[in-house]
């Protein structure tokens, strides 16, 4: 299980810090798939990538991350290498060009494993079994990435990332580069990694909240680098309380539209600048319920069991 407490990840620029992830706390239990949704630029990808690969211009500004009750040294690039791949992995957004283009895939896997001090032979059976799991033929190992389709490359990366049965798997916008028909298959395949016990916990990052209804156990909504609302899928779907969540859901696009500004056509205004953001609630400029108190930092409200929102206008059991 993953526990994140008060995590702050800022980008250093000349003009100041861009607070891409600002004081974010959440957890993912064993056997749980957490869906992470929000507009592009809300910090969800920074959060996902920062957990596994934190390097400049992204900087660590505080907070704690624990995986299976062991603290992750996420700001220590070298020490994190002990955890990467074996304890936590990512299926990156760029999965389609994540493989070395000039190496045959089998050779590539062998070299990566050897570099981690793992005997490739000891893992051969598992590799073949996993290829079957994602419907890839064995012969891909003798091919170059260019010989594979985009979807096949992505599935190859899935196999790679889960090869050592990591405790946590982060799937970052895996559906965004796919056509509608393969989106669902890939989502179920990723959920399958958890259901088959290959990985214990999963974070599924997407801009498309509708995808999450089908696969997520819980959903976390982020806005402007902060958590807006976290709850069980059922709670979020049937009883969204944060004004932003409500608007995000009512502005649901037709399935398959990829661009963030397309999704948010229903919400007037733009997200705030994350460089020196305004004080108080960051959604206030676009919020129809805005009141005086919104200039202050919004409080955490326990809406119901396991359902929280960061908003002044939400009351208990609303």
């Amino acid at each position, binding site marked *: 299980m993953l526990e994140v407490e008060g995590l702050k990840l800022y980008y250093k620029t000349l003009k100041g810090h861009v607070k891409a992830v600002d004081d974010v706390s959440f957890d993912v239990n064993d056997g749980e798939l957490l869906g992470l949704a929000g507009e592009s630029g809300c910090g969800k990808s920074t959060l996902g990538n920062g957990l596994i690969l934190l390097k400049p211009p992204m900087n660590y500004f505080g907070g704690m991350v624990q995986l299976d009750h062991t603290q992750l040294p996420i700001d220590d690039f070298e020490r994190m290498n002990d955890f990467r791949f074996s304890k936590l992995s990512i299926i990156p957004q760029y999965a389609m060009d994540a493989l070395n283009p000039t190496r045959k895939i089998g050779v590539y896997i062998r070299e990566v494993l050897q*570099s981690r001090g793992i005997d490739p032979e000891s893992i051969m059976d598992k590799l073949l079994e996993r290829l079957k799991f994602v419907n890839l033929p064995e012969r891909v190992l003798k091919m170059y990435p260019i*010989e594979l389709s985009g979807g096949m490359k992505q599935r190859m990366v899935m196999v790679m990332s889960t090869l050592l049965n990591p405790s946590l798997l982060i799937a970052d916008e895996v559906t965004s580069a796919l056509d509608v028909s393969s989106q669902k298959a890939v989502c179920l395949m990723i959920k399958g990694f958890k259901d088959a016990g290959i990985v214990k916990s999963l974070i599924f990052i997407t801009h498309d909240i509708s995808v999450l209804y089908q696969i997520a156990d819980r959903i976390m909504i982020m806005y402007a680098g902060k958590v807006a609302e976290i709850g069980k899928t059922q709670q979020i779907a049937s009883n969204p309380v944060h004004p932003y969540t409500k608007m995000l859901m009512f502005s649901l696009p037709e399935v398959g539209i990829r661009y963030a500004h397309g999704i948010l056509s229903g919400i007037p205004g733009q997200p705030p600048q994350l460089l020196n953001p305004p004080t108080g609630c960051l959604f206030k400029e676009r919020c129809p319920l805005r009141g005086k108190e919104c200039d202050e930092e919004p409080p955490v409200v326990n809406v119901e069991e396991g359902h929280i929102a960061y908003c002044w206008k939400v009351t208990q059991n609303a």
Partner: protein
Amino acid sequence: MKKYLGTKILVYILTFVFAVTLDWLIPRFMPGNPILVLVSRFSGLPESARVMYSYLTKAFGLDQPLWSQYVNFWIALFKGDLGISIYLYPRPVLEVLKMAIPYSLGLMIPSILLSWIVGNNLGAIAARRKRLDSIMLPIMYFITGAPYLWLGMLLAYFLGVVWDIFPIAGAYSFSLRPHLSWLFVGDFLKHWILPFLSLFIVQIGGWAIGMRNMVIYELENNYVRYLETLGVKRKLIRKYAFRNAILPQVTGLALQLGTVIAGQVTTEVVFSYPGIGYILTQGILNQDYFLIQGCFLFIIIGVLIANFTVDLVYMALDPRIRFSYGGEV
């Protein structure tokens, strides 16, 4: 793969046709009667001027229609008839060039290959050591900015005159005739080293800069990022980045060729080294137009062969080319 090679070969054939046509066209379309211009420049002896006039009229075939002049030009070319040198009268141009070509290649091929190897390694080292990089980069830029001929003069002045270590003119001593013996080979190498060095050093700069930039670019690539999320050792990342960065450098070999040839020509002049470049310059200074035309053709043919070789090597190295142009897998 076939399509890739096919397109390339087509370009090369067209290039050759284009170059030959240009070679034929230019003396005919320059202002004024080319023969008169040529003969008037060849003003040394009235006797030879008359010989030249009749020879040139025949050679250019100006009394025939243009298309048959053009066809004849091609026919002569395939017969290996590049005309007769004026400056080295009465030796045929082809024979003159055949004598010169081993000297040119003997300088050029080692300088290109060695500078490529050394430069790429320097660049790769610079890409991962920031301090070294900040010192090396400016030096490399000024080295590539140096005209080959000037670096040759610099080396000739210091190593040839001030310290008097190496001879600075010719391919071997006047007292020797080319033959296979230790004495001659030693003498040949002593003459070879300075022109070689001036070509070698200037080229290193370009390769080092190119490689440094390519490695840095590769290190920002997504596949490197993914490798980092897998926690692999730096060594593997470096190995991959180096291997992938070297590929554009292979293509660079073909692109660089033009400037290297220019450098070669001038370097041969500085050291009076009897290669194609030296012959070409002699042809220019003596208005020996057949010799100039012949040199031009030889250079083009050499460039085409080199380009084609680079294409083949590149295809063997990069799977992306092999498959992306091959259509279905």
